[in-house]
C-alpha cells in the first residue's frame, strides 16, 4: 500500500532521500486530539489538579455526583442513584446504583465509594481541601464517611456548609470512585496504592487508561461495559503537541481529529477549510490582574479602581483575543449559576486620571507586571502596559513559566500579576473563597489557597458575605448573596477581572459528539463518533 517513492529533495541545497508521506487519516475507531499535555504529573484522582488530567479522569472515573454530557446544566447522580439530605443539612445518604462494574470487572460497592473519599482525606494531596473543608480529617473520616450497607453511603459534615455546595463539591475529581480491591492489591508500604495509581487507572468510567508517556501521549481505551453503553470510539489518543502551529498543520492534514490549543488568528486562518469545523465552548477560566495590596501604592483602592478604568477590554477582545476570550468582570464565570454578568468598565482615561490624582499619584509611578510566558498572556500584558501608560503608570513586563511565577505569587513578591483562574468545582463558593474570603491576612498564616491572602488584602464585609453565602441553605438567597459579593468585588479589592475564556476547538468535520462544558473537567469523549 505504501510504495516508497524516492524523491530528490533539495532543502538548503542538501540532497536527501525522503520516503513519501503516507496520506494520513486517523483510524475510524480512534479519536486523536492534539493538546499541550505537559501539565500531567499524576493520574491519581486523589491528587489530580491539573487541567489536562482533570479532563482525563473525568472520562476514566465515574463520580458520586456528575454533570453528564447530555445535560451540562444540571447536577445528577453519578454512581449515586439517589440521595437524601438530613434536616440539619449535615448528613447526606447516597444510594449507589446497582450493577455497576469497574474496568477490572469488580462490582462498584458503597464501600468503594466510601474508601475513595477516605483515601482522598488520608492522602491529603492538594485537592483534598475540597472535602476537608467540611471538617473531615484522617482521624474522623472513617466515621464521617462510611458505607452503611452494600449500596448505601452516608456522609456527615461537621462544619457549617450549604448541602447544595456539598453536592457540588462531590462532583469534583476527588469524588471519583476508585476500585478498592484493585488498588489495594498494588499497595506498597501503606500508601493506599498511591504510587501505582499515579500512572494507572482503576475506575468505572467510559474509558480506561492504556498508556501515559509524559510529554508524548496518553492513550485511553473504551470500557465496553459502561453504564451508558459502549463509547463511540475504541480508543482516544491525546497527542502532546505544544506548538499551536503544529496542531493546526496536523489538523489540516488529517493527522489528528481535533486541535485544542489553536490561537484566535489560527482559527481565523482555517475558517475557509471545509474539512474543519470550529466549535466554541464557554469555559470557567477567567483572566484577571491582581495588585499586591501590600504595595504602598497598589494598596490604595482608588489606584486599583483607576486601573479598572484604564484598561481597554474591548479592543483586546475584538483583536488578538477574538473568539477565545470575552469581556467578563466578575469572579464567577458567566453562564454558571450565580454569575454576575454585568461589565461596568470600559476604557475611561479621564476618570482614571482623576482617581489617580485623588490617590495622590497624578504624576504616575512604576510597576512590574508578572505574567505567564504562554500566549495570550504576553500579548495581554503588552496591551495592559500600553493602557496603563495612558494614566502615567509605567510598567515593566516579566514573563515567567508558571512554576516560577507561582512561588513569587505565594510569597507576595509581586506588584501586579496577570494570570488566570478556574474553579475547582462548579459552585460559586469555589471562586468566592479564593477572591473574596481571607480568613487570616497575617503573612505567617500562609493561607496561600486564597488569592486574597496572596495579594495581602482582607475586607471584613467581603469575608462575612462569602461565609454567609457558603452556609446559606436557601438557593435563591444564596444566589443573591453571590451576586452582591461579585458586585462588591467589582468596586473594591485587588482584582481587575478582565476576560472569560471561550475554548475554541477545531475538529475534522467527520467527527461529532465532543462535549466540553464550562469547567475544565467537564470534557467528555464518550459520545464522539466519526463518519
Amino acid at each position, binding site marked *: 500500500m505504501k510504495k516508497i517513492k524516492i524523491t530528490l529533495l533539495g532543502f538548503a541545497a542538501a540532497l536527501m532521500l525522503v520516503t513519501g508521506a503516507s496520506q494520513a487519516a486517523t483510524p475510524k475507531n480512534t479519536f486523536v486530539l492534539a493538546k499541550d499535555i505537559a501539565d500531567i504529573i499524576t493520574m491519581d484522582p486523589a491528587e489530580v489538579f491539573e487541567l489536562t488530567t482533570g479532563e482525563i479522569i473525568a472520562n476514566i472515573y465515574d463520580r458520586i455526583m456528575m454533570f453528564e454530557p447530555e445535560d451540562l446544566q444540571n447536577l445528577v447522580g453519578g454512581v449515586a442513584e439517589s440521595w437524601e439530605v438530613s434536616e440539619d443539612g449535615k448528613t447526606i445518604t447516597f444510594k449507589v446504583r446497582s450493577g455497576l462494574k469497574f474496568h477490572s470487572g469488580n462490582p462498584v460497592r458503597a464501600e468503594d465509594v466510601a474508601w475513595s473519599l477516605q483515601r482522598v482525606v488520608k492522602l491529603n494531596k492538594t485537592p483534598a481541601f475540597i472535602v476537608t473543608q467540611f471538617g473531615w480529617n484522617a482521624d474522623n473520616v472513617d466515621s464521617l464517611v462510611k458505607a452503611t450497607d452494600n449500596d448505601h453511603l452516608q456522609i456527615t459534615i461537621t462544619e457549617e456548609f450549604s448541602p447544595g455546595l456539598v453536592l457540588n463539591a462531590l462532583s469534583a475529581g476527588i469524588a471519583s470512585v476508585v476500585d478498592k480491591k484493585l488498588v489495594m492489591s498494588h499497595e506498597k508500604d501503606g500508601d493506599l496504592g498511591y504510587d501505582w495509581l499515579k500512572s494507572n487507572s482503576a475506575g468505572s468510567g467510559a474509558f480506561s487508561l492504556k498508556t501515559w508517556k509524559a510529554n508524548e501521549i496518553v492513550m485511553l481505551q473504551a470500557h465496553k461495559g459502561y453504564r451508558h453503553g459502549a463509547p463511540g470510539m475504541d480508543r482516544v489518543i491525546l497527542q502532546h503537541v505544544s506548538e499551536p*502551529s503544529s496542531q493546526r498543520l496536523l489538523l489540516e492534514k488529517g493527522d489528528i481529529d481535533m486541535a485544542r490549543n489553536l490561537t484566535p488568528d489560527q482559527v481565523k486562518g482555517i475558517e475557509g477549510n471545509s474539512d474543519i469545523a470550529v466549535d466554541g465552548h464557554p469555559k470557567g477560566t477567567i483572566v484577571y490582574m491582581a495588585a499586591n495590596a501590600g504595595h504602598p501604592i497598589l494598596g490604595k483602592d482608588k489606584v486599583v479602581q483607576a486601573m479598572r478604568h484604564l484598561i481597554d477590554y474591548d479592543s483586546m477582545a*475584538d483583536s488578538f483575543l477574538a473568539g477565545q476570550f470575552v469581556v467578563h468582570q466578575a469572579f464567577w464565570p458567566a453562564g454558571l449559576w450565580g454569575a454576575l454578568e454585568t461589565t461596568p468598565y470600559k476604557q475611561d482615561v479621564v476618570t482614571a486620571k482623576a482617581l489617580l490624582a485623588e490617590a495622590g499619584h497624578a504624576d504616575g509611578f512604576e510597576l512590574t507586571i508578572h505574567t505567564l*510566558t504562554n500566549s495570550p498572556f*504576553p*500579548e495581554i*500584558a*503588552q496591551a495592559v502596559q500600553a493602557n496603563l501608560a495612558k494614566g502615567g503608570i509605567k510598567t515593566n513586563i516579566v514573563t*515567567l513559566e508558571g512554576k516560577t511565577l507561582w512561588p513569587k505569587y505565594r510569597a507576595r513578591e509581586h506588584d501586579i500579576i496577570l494570570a488566570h483562574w478556574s474553579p475547582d468545582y462548579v459552585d460559586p463558593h469555589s471562586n468566592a473563597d479564593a477572591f473574596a474570603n481571607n480568613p487570616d491576612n497575617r503573612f505567617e498564616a500562609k493561607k496561600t489557597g486564597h488569592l486574597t491572602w496572596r495579594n495581602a488584602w482582607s475586607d471584613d464585609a467581603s469575608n462575612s458575605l462569602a461565609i454567609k453565602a457558603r452556609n446559606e441553605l436557601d438557593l435563591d438567597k444564596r444566589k443573591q448573596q453571590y451576586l452582591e459579593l461579585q458586585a462588591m468585588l467589582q468596586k473594591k479589592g485587588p482584582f481587575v477581572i478582565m476576560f472569560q475564556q471561550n475554548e475554541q476547538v477545531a475538529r475534522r468535520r467527520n467527527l461529532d459528539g465532543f462535549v466540553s462544558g464550562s469547567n475544565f473537567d467537564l470534557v467528555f469523549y464518550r459520545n464522539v463518533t466519526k463518519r
Partner: protein
Amino acid sequence: MTTLTLRGWLLAEVPRSKGQARCQRVFISWLAFKRNPVAVIGLLIIASLVMVALLAPWLTSTEALELNLAKRLQPPGGEHWFGTDELGRDILDRIIWGSRITLYIVGLVSIIVVPIGLVIGVVAGYIGGWVDNFLMRLTDIFLAFPRLILAMALVAALGPGLENAVLAIALTTWSPFARIARAEALTIRNSDFILAARMQGVSTAGILTRHVAPLCMSSVIVRLTLDMAGIILTAAGLGFLGLGAQPPTPEWGAMISLGRQYLIDQWWVPTMPGIAILVVSLGFNLLGDGLRDVFDPKSGGNQ
C-alpha cells in the same frame, strides 16, 4: 592631496613614530582584508547594523512602536514595508530598534568572554603543570555541559531578562576561547622570542600580558567573530523560550517566538526577524572567515 599624503604616511617605508608604526600595521592588514570580497561583504553587513542601530531614532517614527490593535497583522506593503505584527506594530521599526539589542548582546558577551577565555587559556597554556590541569578540567566541565541547557538554568536562576541572558551566554561560551588561547599559548611559549624575553628577566606576568596574550588575541577574535552568529542565535533561542528579552523589547528571537503562531497565515511576522538574524549572523560569519584569512594566511587565500 590629503588622501595621497595620508596614504603615503601610512605606507611610508620608514615609520617615524610608534603611532605611525601602529597605524601602518592596521592599514596594511586593512589592505589585505580589502582584497577579500567575502570579508568586505561581512564587514559591510556589520557596519550597516551598527549604522542602523545608531540611527534608529531617525529611521523610525515614534508612534511606530506603540500598539495599534486596529492595524494588526497587515501584510508588507507601502505603508509598512515589513508588515505589522500581532499587536499592530511596524515590524521594520521593531527590527531597527532590535538591532541595538543585538549589538548590546554581542558587545556585552564579547567583553565578558574574551578576558575570561584569554586569562584562563593563556595562564593554563603558558604556566602548564597542575595549573594547566586544573584550569582545563574546569573548562572541560563547562564544555561537557549542554550549552543551551546551562544557559537556561542560569537564566532561570537569575531571573529572565536580557542582561541575565547575556550573562548566562557568556558563562557558557568562554570555554572554547580558553582552549584556543591555551593552544596558542602552548605553541608560543616555546618560541625563541619568549625565551628571549625570559632571558632578559621579564617577569612571568609581563610575558603573559605583553608577549603571549597579544598573540593569542587574533585567533580569539577570529573565533569570537565566528561565534558571534552562535551567540546571537543562542540569545534568540533563549528569547524563543521566553527566557531572554522581555516583551515588548523588540529582541529578534523573542519576536520570532511570539510571532511563530502566525507563520502559516501571516508569514511575515516571524519571517522578517528570522531574516534579520540570518543576515546579521551571516555578516559575522563572513567577517570571521575573512579575518581568519587575514590573520592566518595559511588557511585560505593564496599561500
